[in-house]
């Protein structure tokens, strides 16, 4: 045999091995999006055969759509809409009661900075509408009559409104709750690695292969910049900011997070990011801290030992809770 033949055969073997390695499929993973609850909901899932992943993600999307119909004030026949239309007292489903119970607890602990009863105020501002405008201060004052953390009481699944005209709005918590329920559906299907992101309300289940999930936190004033990156696993990350939905008039930004005391967009923060055990809690805390501002916001967070927060104040300064640093990745 000629001396060069082993060399050529060796090269061919190496070439074939490289080709085989490049053609190997990646680990099964899927990434799908749907427009639900007024935002883009993304679900990433991995670690199972594609067919099982598809079935699990379909079921998770179905769960979010079902809860949207139950909890959104934009659906005329939702339970929340019926509650707003009711005269005084209503029986609600266990799911709606669960959301209300958590929301009312955060409302009380935050001294009313988080408020489930701002339906009339949000309708008045119509920030989500096509032509939002600044309401007259008399109209704002009228929309705030009878609202507050004690305007709604819950006894089991029985909800009582203090006034007949009280309008319920679960916008600051329902999306988070829906993500929590969708994660539960993924778990029921055996999924151990997944992420759901509903317009900034996200839950990171398990890990990426061999490492935790890495989440970038958007800079509130520079859209292309990342403020920080955190590493989390089996936790929620929720960001609320004044740059999400807003309009500007005479150089002033009017955004969608309202101070229940004034009926005006809250002015003490640019953004708040919360890491918590559930997205619903993170959602409610992000809104409450945004309204309270850095000092009072951090005091509120100290009542929740398993929740941490990063606050960008109105002047751009950064404030974080004591345990935030353990999630921060090295710069």
């Amino acid at each position, binding site marked *: 045999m*000629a*001396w*060069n*033949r082993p060399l*050529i055969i060796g*090269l*061919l073997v190496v*070439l074939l091995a490289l080709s085989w390695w490049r053609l190997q499929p990646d680990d099964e*993973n*899927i*990434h*799908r*999006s*749907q*427009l639900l609850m007024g935002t*883009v909901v*993304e679900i*990433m899932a991995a670690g199972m055969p594609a067919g099982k992943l598809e079935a699990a993600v379909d079921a998770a999307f179905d769960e979010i759509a079902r809860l949207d119909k139950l909890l959104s004030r934009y659906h005329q026949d939702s339970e929340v809409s019926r509650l707003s239309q009711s005269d005084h007292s209503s029986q609600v489903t266990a799911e709606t009661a669960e959301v209300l119970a958590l929301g009312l607890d955060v409302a009380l602990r935050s001294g009313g900075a988080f408020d489930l009863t701002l339906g009339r105020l949000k309708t008045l501002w119509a920030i989500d509408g096509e032509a939002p405008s600044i309401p007259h201060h008399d109209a704002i004052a009228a929309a705030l009559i009878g609202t507050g953390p004690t305007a709604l009481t819950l006894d089991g699944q029985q909800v009582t409104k203090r006034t007949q005209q009280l309008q319920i709005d679960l916008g600051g918590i329902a999306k988070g709750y829906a993500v929590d329920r969708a994660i539960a559906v993924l778990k029921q299907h055996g999924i151990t690695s997944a*992420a759901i*992101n509903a317009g*900034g309300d*996200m839950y*990171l289940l398990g890990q*990426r292969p061999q490492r935790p*999930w*890495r*989440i*970038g*936190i*958007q800079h509130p004033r520079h*859209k*292309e910049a*990342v403020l920080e*990156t955190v590493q989390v696993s089996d936790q929620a*990350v*929720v*960001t609320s*900011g004044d*740059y*999400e939905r807003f309009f500007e008039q005479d150089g002033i930004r009017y955004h969608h997070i309202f101070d229940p005391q004034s009926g005006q967009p809250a002015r003490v923060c640019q953004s708040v*990011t919360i890491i918590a055990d559930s997205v619903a809690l993170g959602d409610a805390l992000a809104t409450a801290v945004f309204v309270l501002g850095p000092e009072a916001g951090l005091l509120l967070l100290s009542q929740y030992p398993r929740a941490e927060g990063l606050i960008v104040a109105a002047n751009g300064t950064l404030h974080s809770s004591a345990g935030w640093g353990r999630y921060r*990745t090295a710069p």
Partner: protein
Amino acid sequence: MKTPWQIMTGGDWLVVLLLLAVSLAGVGWVATAPEGTRVVVTSGEQVLFTAPIDQPHSVSLDGPLGPTRLVIDDQGARITDSPCPRKTCISMGPARHTGNLLACIPNRILVRIDSPADPEAPYDLLSR
């Protein structure tokens, strides 16, 4: 004693030529524009959607005329369905290199392929 060139058969030469061709093709592949890592879809100044380009994905994006369907697969990102009258965006085919654009002007959908500013500090999702 025969030199290596004298003992090589026609088949040996064929294999050497094949290996040379594969090597040259590899050099050409490496020399093309860098592949992007992220698909960003905007409408006006609003970012509608972002996703890694290396993960298969299908998404329906609403524009003024209706839904535009974007598919990300092993060829890159491409528009597969659109309510616009001329379907130019569909005929543009896939985009996968940094800076590539797909545009559906009637439906105000712009698809951009880019890469993060710092590839050494990537993140899986952006919280905003």
